[in-house]
């Protein structure tokens, strides 16, 4: 029997991490300054998961990829302009607040409900993909909880590679300490795979893929269900960004090794 996968990729929409981000505390809790003005991208970890999902689906005829995202419709739409050119998928949009300062349980509930409601989704063939760690300020537990709510107990985190066997089982490479991988074999779907960076490059923009995706993107956005996420008593004591320090020097004719040594020394300081 052919291996057919129904892959749901959970992906948050986040401010482009290349922008200058500044935490602020507003009346509704922590946020980023001018967040609605900042350009948005797909959480880079989840983007890796999406490309891996598309690659897997392409290798197994009949498989489907669903991109499940929670965020303001306008921002999701903006992100789709770029992402939809990359790989084929069907968008499942949930209209909700921007950012990741939200309770992981209520976020996971909204995502799990959206996945469970996907017409035609075969939960026995489900692979739940997402980013292992998130650039969206989430607690890092959301994907795991989504899986649990969907009753998927085989879970892998920090995944860099899966190899599907003919019998439907698959080998998973999970990152472990020391720069090594833990190798596991999972008997088959359903399973949760929280991806690290994977091994695939960002696909080229393909106009035909974009045209095909866009036929489904706009209707998905139009029917996106609005959800309000409960704080569940969650409060943030403090929010801060990693300390950044910028020192720029223009040098010429300095050997690469010397530059590397200086950078290492600077980081160590």
């Amino acid at each position, binding site marked *: 029997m052919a291996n057919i996968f129904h892959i749901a990729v959970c992906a948050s929409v986040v401010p482009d991490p290349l922008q*200058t981000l500044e935490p602020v505390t507003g009346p509704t809790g922590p946020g980023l300054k001018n967040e609605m003005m900042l350009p948005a991208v797909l959480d880079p970890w989840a983007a890796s998961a999406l490309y891996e999902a598309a690659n897997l689906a392409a290798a197994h005829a009949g498989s489907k990829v669903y991109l499940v995202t929670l965020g303001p419709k306008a921002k999701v739409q903006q992100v789709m302009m770029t992402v939809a050119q990359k790989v084929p998928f069907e968008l499942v949009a949930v209209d909700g607040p921007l950012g990741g300062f939200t309770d992981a349980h209520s976020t996971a509930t909204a995502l799990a409900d959206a996945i469970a409601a996907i017409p035609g989704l075969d939960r026995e063939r489900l692979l739940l993909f997402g980013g292992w760690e998130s650039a969206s300020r989430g607690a890092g537990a959301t994907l795991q909880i989504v899986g649990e709510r969907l009753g998927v107990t085989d879970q892998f985190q920090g995944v860099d590679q899966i190899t599907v066997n003919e019998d439907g089982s698959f080998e998973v490479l999970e990152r472990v300490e020391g720069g090594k991988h833990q190798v596991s074999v999972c008997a088959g779907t359903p399973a949760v795979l929280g991806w690290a960076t994977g091994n695939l490059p960002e696909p080229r923009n393909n106009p035909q893929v974009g045209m095909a995706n866009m036929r489904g993107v706009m209707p998905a956005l*139009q029917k996106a269900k609005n959800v309000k996420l409960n704080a569940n008593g969650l409060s943030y004591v403090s929010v801060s960004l990693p300390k950044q320090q910028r020192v720029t020097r223009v040098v010429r004719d300095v050997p690469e090794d010397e530059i590397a040594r200086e950078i290492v020394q600077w980081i160590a300081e």
Partner: protein
Amino acid sequence: MNEVSAELQQEIERQQMDVDIACVGFGPAMGGFLTTLTREMSAHPEDPALSSKAAPGLPLQVLCYERSDDIAAGVSGVVTGGKAIRASFPEIASAGIPMMGPVTQEKIVYLLDPIGASRRSAVLRAGDAVLRNLLRVEHNAFELPYTPGFLEKHGGMVMSIGQFNQWVGTELMGSGLAQVWPGTPVSTALFDGSEVKGVRLADQGVDRKGNPDAGFMAGMDVHAELTVVGDGPVGAVGRSIDRKFGMPNGHAQHEWAVGMKMVVELPEDTPLEAGTVWHTFGYPEPEIFGFMYVHPDRLASVGIFVPSWLGNPGRTSYRYLQHFMQHPYLWRYLNGGTMRSWGAKSLAESGANGEPFLVGDGYARIGEGSGSTNMLTGSGVDEAWATGVQLAEGVVELLRAGKPFTRENLEATYVRRRRESSVERGAQAAKEARNGFHQGFVRGLIGMGLAGMTKGKLSVAANVRPAYKQIDRLKKFYSRLEPGQLEKAKQEAASGGRTLHDALMDACGWPEVAYDGKLLVTQQDALLMGGKVQAAPGFADHVIFRDHALCAACEERTCIAMCSGQAITRGDGTMPAFDREKCIHCGACLWNCTQSADGEHSNIEFRAGAGGLHSAEN
């Protein structure tokens, strides 16, 4: 040879796609076009005239390709009268677009030179002395007692084009009737004899020279009955059409400027009111105009325009901008502020004199690249939007009449509307308004004043030379330096110690900039802090040095001085080096080159490329 051979290009097998209308470049003009067109489609969903021929049974298939990686990236803060924009969006003031607000006060300010490094004529120096000693002006600046009517923007609005574009794009995509694809550069129009048949997207998965490399994906040919070109003054498609069909008799794009600006978060105790608009002239060089627009939420756009007629071969927008911001008139408000974003772009300043063929069989041009910017009023966004609206109205008229998109039909609809509009009246009034600047700053001001007050009936005549000829030779321009100073600066640059333009500015008396890490930062830090350059892998270099012998013999290297992102630098050999990952796509290199092989075009070619500066709060 730094390009893929024509034979190879012909051999490459390409995917093809048919659409009804292919659009290039998403700016205000395209926003106006797509907004107007999709509204008509939305209002009349059953109208067979607005259904697709390329995909029968579906609405018109309208696609827009944009090279930057986001439709909000890499553009500028502006003040605009906003007449055409408000005609499209009467309720725009309450739309909640960030950084948008009404103009509350305007000033025209003449800035004196507080340092003594500015290159001023004897007439200007005498005028400055009068202002200082007799009128005792404060903060080294003279506020004009009134704003001439032709410059007035009262009743208009300050806004961020980045935020405005983002909002327009969201509205458009929400309609589901047009698709906008960022991150997709278009390399050329597709020609069939005298007809434009669509566009060719840029090849992906190529090396720096454009040769197929890992993951090669040939750029798709997108065929369309109508190609709408709104890719701005340095866009590859507009320029490919200019190359193919030439320019109308007597027209040429000879006048340019780089607009470079920062969005600054003003200090918390700033007394400046949102909607404050200042236009400045006189400093850092007399020819450099400047501005400060105060947006809501304590944000301000501060910047300068460095024009092609500033003959200085060592002109450098970035350092001039830093000196401009530190002028006492501005610094009293900017000191303590923080840069939030930074950016630059080329402006086509020839206006009607640089207007290309607006239409042809299968294509129409809108926006800045079509010569719509009014350099007398200093206004381009609203005019660009208006041209887009006019084209959309013309297109709908032709579709309903069942007429093809021929030159004659587009002339009778789009061009007719444009000629009958305020865009054209403004363009004609502005046509010769800035000529005087080619004969000196004071003559320029007189000419501009004359043209402004007589609606273009009077102006100063001038022979406007190609941009590359407007740049003086080093020895001529820096003849005021002490003997040996020029050579010393050149030696410093040759040894790699510093750039030639910085050394020359030092030699002219410009003080070193004391970096504060917030607003006054190095040019490289501005790239990192003020936005992020996006350069997706797998695209070819888009800046090409045509004749290497000319570059090798070039002494001025103005391309290096005026490169907004320091993407062009002194190379290891005789050629300048280009680093695509630093290029913000301002296009300044195209016209900041003193060399020409054909007597018209410079020695630098600016092709289609992906990415550019990604700066959100522009």
